[in-house]
């Protein structure tokens, strides 16, 4: 086993205390090996506080929300709507009514794409207009726009990537033009770890009057997220990557847009009044929440943002930054390891993709797993990134507030073992 020869980084959180909150991190795998969970970009683990909040909800307060006059319905509604307040505060939304609960970030992004397809002018995306995305998007921010383009006749365009894993904005004025109706991009890449320069894109989009959608799925869990500072029109993220439960996502949208744009899913809760021949719709956010919402999951997400805010998003970002720098340093000592994405710690999140010699990532991941180290391998739902860099797949290690330098050391040792194994 290789010894850590990089100095321990500064700015770390007290992970010993934090890890006690996460029951799963105690697990052992493969006959007693301590789990080293480095698959946080795929999904985070959950603190006891979040599970407790959901259990308390189910055991004491559950009922369907809204319109009920009995105690449980009122308590459930207060808890559900209270979670909306918490999320609104967490992202500095000007109004709680701008927070729409969805089932995941993918639904949030599909919701926007569908609204723009059915919208009236000036928002309507149709033949003769352009949709702009980037080559580093998650499939969930590609396929909905491909659908929209196919169904409306609009043209899908995108920003390419530089060799060092950044957006190539050199041709920004040709990509975003007067034809552009909407620009949708990822704030932090889930493969490369790149943090994108949103100001420049937003500025150009505003110049041409295009709407801006930001996929913050990999940002919300890891850094302070301020939708007002972003100046976007829509921001999407997902609960399960930020200590929350599965089954819930968020779409934040500017009030005026949520008012003007048409609904997407139809059903209970999203209506104002219904007759057999016509219906009118409730004001946002309810207009976009058809059917029984993910009540317990909202309560869980509310507890998650409380938990994260309690530690402090600035401190979490600093911790991850320190771990990432440490990991980049340590990984640079592994022969034949090639980082796919920025190699410096600047403007990058705690997600590191790499290839190791010509060992297939599936083999890397499997042999790491046998040592208890959980990483993700494959194209990470962002296949165009792999195509761009001419590789079939990557191995990806991704950190979170509970990740430790010792876990980085375990990863590095594990990779040395992998090299030996297939060497």
């Amino acid at each position, binding site marked *: 086993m290789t010894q850590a020869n990089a100095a321990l980084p500064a700015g770390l959180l007290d992970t010993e205390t934090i890890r006690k909150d996460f029951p799963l991190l105690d697990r052992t795998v493969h006959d007693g090996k301590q789990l080293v969970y480095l698959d946080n970009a795929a999904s985070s683990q959950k603190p006891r506080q979040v599970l407790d909040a959901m259990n308390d909800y189910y055991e004491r307060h559950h009922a369907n929300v809204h319109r009920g006059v009995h105690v449980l319905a009122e308590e459930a509604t207060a808890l559900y709507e209270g979670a909306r307040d918490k999320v609104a505060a967490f992202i500095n939304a000007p109004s709680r009514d701008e927070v729409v609960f969805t089932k995941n970030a993918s639904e949030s992004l599909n919701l926007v794409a569908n609204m723009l397809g059915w919208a009236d002018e000036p928002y309507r995306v149709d033949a003769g207009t352009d949709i702009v995305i980037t080559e580093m998007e998650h499939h969930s921010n590609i396929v909905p726009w491909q659908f929209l383009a196919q169904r409306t006749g609009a043209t899908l365009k995108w920003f390419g990537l530089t060799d060092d894993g950044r957006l190539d904005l050199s041709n920004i004025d040709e990509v975003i033009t007067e034809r552009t109706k909407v620009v949708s991009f990822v704030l932090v890449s889930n493969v490369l770890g790149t943090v994108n320069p949103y100001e420049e894109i937003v500025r150009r989009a505003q110049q041409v009057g295009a709407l801006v959608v930001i996929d913050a799925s990999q940002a919300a869990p890891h850094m302070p997220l301020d939708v007002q500072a972003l100046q976007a029109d829509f921001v999407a993220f997902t609960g399960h990557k930020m200590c929350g439960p599965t089954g819930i996502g968020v779409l934040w949208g500017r009030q005026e847009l949520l008012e003007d744009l048409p609904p997407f899913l139809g059903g209970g809760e999203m209506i104002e009044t219904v007759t057999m021949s016509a219906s009118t719709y409730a004001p946002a956010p309810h207009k976009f929440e058809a059917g029984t919402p993910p009540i317990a999951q909202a309560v869980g997400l509310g507890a998650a943002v409380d938990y994260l805010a309690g530690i402090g998003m600035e401190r979490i970002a600093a911790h991850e930054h320190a771990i990432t720098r440490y990991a980049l340093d340590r990984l640079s000592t592994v022969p034949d390891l090639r980082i796919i994405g920025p190699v410096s710690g600047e403007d990058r999140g705690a997600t590191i993709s790499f290839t190791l010699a010509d060992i297939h990532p599936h083999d890397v991941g499997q042999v790491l797993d046998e040592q208890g180290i959980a990483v993700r391998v*494959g194209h990470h739902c962002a296949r165009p990134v792999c195509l761009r860099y001419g590789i079939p797949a990557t191995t990806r290690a991704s950190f979170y507030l509970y990740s430790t330098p010792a876990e980085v050391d375990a990863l590095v040792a594990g990779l040395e073992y992998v090299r030996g194994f297939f060497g």
Partner: protein
Amino acid sequence: MYQDVILDHYKHPHGRGLRDGDAEVHHVNPTCGDEITLRVRYEGDVVADVSYDGQGCSISQASASVLNELLVGKELAAARDIQETFLTLMQSRGQVVPDDAMEEVLEDAVAFAGVSKYPARVKCALLSWMAWKDATAQALGESAAKEKL
């Protein structure tokens, strides 16, 4: 999972490279990007050659090598029997412990028994075998057989 036999085939593959054939297929495992181009050549009823090229994990590479070793020189019926036995083993979710009869049919390929416990990897192990089945059907003009793949 990584039996020595598998690692051995991975590091020293049998019959790798593309040679003349009666039919060529290209198969892809979209979830991990494994790819194989495979050609079969028949002499009457006998598998005269299986040549292949591609990229992929050790399991898919080793599996192609084992396939080459096992099938080349066999009569078609016997080759099919091996293919089917291998398929059964791989789809067994670790439930089938190869007995002597199976070992006799599968030879080195029994080393893949452990892979069947890992659903994510079964497709890797089967990639070349599915390609072979497909290529064989084409070579022999069995369009109906292709349907059954």
